[in-house]
């Protein structure tokens, strides 16, 4: 790893740590009682590897946490990764990064565990809260949720100020965006 790459990774480690800690405080008191927020490391990747073979996982899902996270984190040292735990169970994962211009934040993947868990229905809101916090901390002015796959979910977040851009061209995928 080059020194400049390491320096960026290290400096953004502080932003990631701050964002997870602050997002934790921003959760509802009920969630704070049993939720913890971490980065995605070997343990989370291994667990997510079992999700990818689960019969409940959408057959259309392309992203592999087990295979994709390490490369994503290395190639994008300013990325933000989030593992959502509750009572010893990994309940959700999300990952994203600033856009090319650096002034907007992309949330590229959100996934809830296919197993029964206490956080079903809250994984997206927890992810959005953490990514919003990270976006604010690095000075981004917009949050984009890339490729949302559920219409009910899209409608729900439109009620909180997100705008839907329904992509037509292949390089403009459907996304929800919110100015900060």
């Amino acid at each position, binding site marked *: 790893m080059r020194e400049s790459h390491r320096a960026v990774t290290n400096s953004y480690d*502080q932003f990631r740590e*701050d964002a997870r800690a*602050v*997002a934790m*405080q*921003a*959760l*509802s008191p009920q*969630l704070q009682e049993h939720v913890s927020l971490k980065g995605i490391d070997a343990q989370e990747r291994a667990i997510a590897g079992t*999700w990818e073979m689960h019969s*409940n*996982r*959408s*057959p*259309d*899902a*392309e*992203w592999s946490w087990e295979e994709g996270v390490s490369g*994503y984190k290395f*190639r*994008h040292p300013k990325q933000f990764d989030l593992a959502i735990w509750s009572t010893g169970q990994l309940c959700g994962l999300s990952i994203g990064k600033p*856009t*090319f*211009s650096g002034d*907007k934040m992309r*949330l*590229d*993947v*959100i*996934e809830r*565990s296919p197993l029964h868990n206490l956080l*079903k*229905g*809250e*994984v*997206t*809101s927890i992810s959005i*809260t953490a990514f*919003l*916090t990270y976006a*604010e*901390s690095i*000075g981004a002015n917009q949050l984009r*949720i*890339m*490729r*949302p*796959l*559920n219409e*009910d*979910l899209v409608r*729900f977040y439109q*009620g*909180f100020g997100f705008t839907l*851009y329904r992509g037509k061209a292949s*390089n*403009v*995928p459907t*996304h929800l*965006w919110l100015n900060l």
Partner: protein
Amino acid sequence: MNEETRPEPGTPEFREWLLEKVKPFADQLFNAEKPEGFEEDGYIAGPTKGEKLTPEKSVAEDVAIDKAHKRAHLKVEK
């Protein structure tokens, strides 16, 4: 709070400043009732079959999306 009054990252003041910015929005999210079947499909957002998340592709997407937003904004202004 503007950039001049933004506290130093890594300090307690920075975390307090961040919390003040995000807490009102988070409160709204967590107080809202979610519709039936919300997050039923665990794969909530992400690439689907045939799509890859490569750095080259995401840069092209970022540029194209910025342009699309600008065009949409111009339409609204007309």
